[in-house]
């Protein structure tokens, strides 16, 4: 399979200029070419390497998106879909210029089917907005990657987050999609039926495709009943090995934890300082959340506490009040900023890996040892019930050597996870930073990914340069 053949040439500067002109005519104020706006759309939240699009457009419906893509298709100009730019792997950088399609004005919840536990939203709706609109229905959308990302972005990167251990990732929670394909056609995949054997699974193909096969414009999502009872607890361990041991036993016993988060000693120290958490020590820590009936939650929590005690864990500190819980999870979600505060002036980026739960202890201990050996300022946090963890690496942006070292460590974490039967990304996606790791992970199957990319986007205009290496 030749990789280079079939790569179409891109539209010339003139053609790009004509596209920008046409968009300005058709969209007026909603097509922006100012430097400030283009700079805002030049990168996500990962490593700071901006690449500016030529224009940013704010469509309002499927037909407008299809019109933009048709225009770009005819002129062979790149199309980059943009949610709120919280991606961590460089997904939104306009590596080859082109049109940034900002979906933030497609932000309507189109339908809520309370009886069927599903809803349909436009791609620019954020998860917090959706949950706000669900208030009063007794339902919620659980997937929580931390950032208040758009649901389109979450679908495109196959996001998961802290409670995937109970509710799955976007893969399990997207029922259907409306997608504008590379030639500007509108297709509908999946639907409201809970299961279907009709045709290939296009829904899951577009989920996680990072905008490289089409622009997701609408999403049918699964919803869940708000649990009758929720409680959260904190437990601290003498060392990382003991904490991970408790996680593995809990998963093996099938305790239906809603969240189980690990913070290593350095991260806990950072959180205590940054979020002013009282009564905790700078030790490896597990945060638990239990969902269910009153009886179920009590039962789960007791079982978990016994397992923790067997692994030299401290007594549970409870957070049964909603405010206490939200303070706790806020501290967890602010882990990134807390880590940054460990060394003012430095920047941070987060790498993402996921291993089979049976290898989690090996992978985390080896990774921590490497970080210490290399003298890196780095913390480990993880949605460990899934075997998914992140390393937050700090580096001095003025020092090329420091950044290179941090990137080398990130690469090494990816390869270690892959070597243990895992993956270089549990939830952040491939973007531009993990193209090499993708090949290490999938070998021959990457040829098939290239073939699919060519089949669905022969001109290579959909978010070019991402997800699948050329």
């Amino acid at each position: 399979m030749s990789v280079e053949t079939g790569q179409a040439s891109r539209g010339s500067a003139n053609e790009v200029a004509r596209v920008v002109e046409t968009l300005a005519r058709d969209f007026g104020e909603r097509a922006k070419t100012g430097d400030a706006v283009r700079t805002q759309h030049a990168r996500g939240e990962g490593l700071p390497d901006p690449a500016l699009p030529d224009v940013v457009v704010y469509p309002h419906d499927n037909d407008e998106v299809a019109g933009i893509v048709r225009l770009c298709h005819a002129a062979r100009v790149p199309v980059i879909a943009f949610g709120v730019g919280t991606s961590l792997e460089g997904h939104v950088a306009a590596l080859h210029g082109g049109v940034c399609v900002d979906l933030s004005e497609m932000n309507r919840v189109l339908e809520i089917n309370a009886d069927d536990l599903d809803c349909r939203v436009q791609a620019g709706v954020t998860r917090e907005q959706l949950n706000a609109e669900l208030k009063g229905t007794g339902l919620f959308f659980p997937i929580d990657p931390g950032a208040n990302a758009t649901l389109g972005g979450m679908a495109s990167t196959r996001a998961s987050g802290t409670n995937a251990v109970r509710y799955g990732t976007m893969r399990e929670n997207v029922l259907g999609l409306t997608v504008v394909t590379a030639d500007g056609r509108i297709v509908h995949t999946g639907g409201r039926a809970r299961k279907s054997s009709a045709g290939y699974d296009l829904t899951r193909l577009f989920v996680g495709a990072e905008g490289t096969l089409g622009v997701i414009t609408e999403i049918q999502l699964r919803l869940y009943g708000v649990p009758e009872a929720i409680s959260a607890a904190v437990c601290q361990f003498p060392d990382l090995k003991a904490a991970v041991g408790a996680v593995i036993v809990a998963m093996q016993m099938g305790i239906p934890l809603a969240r189980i988060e690990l913070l290593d000693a350095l991260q806990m120290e950072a959180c205590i300082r940054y979020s002013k958490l009282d009564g905790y020590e700078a030790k490896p820590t597990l945060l638990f959340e239990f969902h269910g009936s009153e009886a179920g939650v009590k039962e789960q929590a007791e079982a978990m506490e016994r397992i923790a005690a067997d692994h030299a864990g401290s007594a549970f500190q409870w957070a049964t009040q909603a405010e206490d819980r939200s303070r706790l999870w806020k501290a967890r979600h602010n882990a990134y900023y807390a880590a940054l505060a460990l060394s003012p002036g430095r920047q941070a980026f987060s790498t993402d890996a996921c291993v089979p739960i049976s290898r989690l202890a090996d992978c985390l201990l080896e990774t921590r040892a490497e970080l210490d050996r290399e003298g890196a300022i780095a913390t480990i946090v993880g949605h460990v019930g899934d075997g998914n963890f992140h390393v937050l690496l700090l580096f001095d942006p003025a020092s090329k050597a420091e950044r290179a070292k941090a990137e080398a460590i990130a690469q090494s974490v990816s390869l270690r996870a892959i070597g243990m039967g895992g993956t270089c990304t549990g939830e952040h996606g491939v973007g531009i930073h993990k193209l090499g790791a993708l090949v290490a992970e999938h070998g021959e199957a990457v040829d098939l990914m290239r073939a699919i990319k060519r089949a669905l986007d022969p001109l290579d205009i959909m978010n070019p340069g991402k997800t699948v290496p050329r």
Partner: protein
Amino acid sequence: MLDTAVHAELAAILPAASLLTAVEDVKPYECDGLTVYRALPAAVVLPETEAQVVAILKTCHAAKVPVVARGAGTSLSGGALPDPNGIVLSLARFKRILAVDALARTAVVQPGVRNLAISEAVAPLGLYYAPDPSSQIACSIGGNVAENAGGVHCLKYGLTVHNVLRVRGVLITGEVVEFGGDAPDSAGYDLLALSIGSEGLLAVITEVTVRLLPKPQVAQVALAAFDAVETAGAAVGAIIAAGIIPAGLEMMDQPATRAVEEFVHADYPLDAAAVLLVETDGTTDEVAAEMAEIRQVLTAAGATSIRVSRDEAQRLLFWSGRKAAFPAVGRISPDYYCMDGTIPRKALPRVLQAIAQWSVEYGLACANVFHAGDGNLHPLILFDANKPGEIERTIAFGDRILELCIEVGGTVTGEHGVGVEKLSPMCRQFGAAELTRFHAIKEAFDELRLLNPGKAVPTLHRCAELGRMHVHHGELRFPDLPRF
């Protein structure tokens, strides 16, 4: 007839006993569970190693010979129907469980392993494999992956796509590929999901890593009676809307319960217009709490009686009727035609009412036995093929049901797959834009269209009427096998 050169190449790859070409030897492979379609293949190959599969596919690719992979042959949509110019590649000899990892809760199995054999093998570890199509005693895991099989418990525990971590397979070019991985997620395009439910059109599966679950401590089932089918349908919605996701939620109407009762004596209330089976599982406390809630919702929804299984024996008795429903209906009618549409649950009362009305209009009885919690309908239209005009009326009736499924936002096949049976309804469910994408994906994997040709995705210019599942007297293969 197989080309002599191809035959010679296959004979060099396989021992004589593993290459069948005589009519009497290939005859057993002429159809699967959809017996109305039959075709004799040019040859049947029974490889035992992945290297043999690779060599066979390379040979067929070079000679442009179609290849139809076959598991246990229990498909209900003609997924394993042979191509008269091609070979059937049977995975029947790939029946080893290669590894079980109790800590990671996974098992690596060959595609010919029976679905139930996995659960039996890991039972001593307190684990099981969740998807449970009713034919689980016979159907193979490779076939389950190819069809994205579901089952009674998939409402809570998901379909095959939710319970498989990794698939290893061989492309038509002979290239060995792996999709997914041992971790819960995998980078890049979701080739794993693409391969699951692809009906043997993209790759021949040689190895599957399945996810295992800890067996729930206890399970209990409620048998609720209703005096109208629509009320029972509405009760299904009420249970889900109350935030309860039962382990199983099945419905049977009166024609079905009466047929079953005569056959297996499952102790069903025969005066009820419909019954629901609602199962809950988990720890003792959870089950007690959830069953109390279920009772409340069922009562409020108008159940005329509710009986909760008092022990494991009674639980199995209540389920025995559901599991035997299809063979039971087969006993009371010379022929039946089984549908497989899936709809949003909320539309259940409307669709059930329409089916009842059409049953009168077409003068054909219809028994409903189905996965109500998923909204997956299996109306069984009863008819007699020997009565003139009944087949035509049955097909017209069935078509209207599928059309209504699409109209209310559903799909023409919930779990049986498209195969050759549903090619025509696929044209109604999908437009040209979607079908073009399906074909593009097929081409990316198999440019010459040699793997299972003519199945699953209709060609654009040939969205033609192609036929139906039609079970006539003894023609249903394995007639006693529980189905659906």
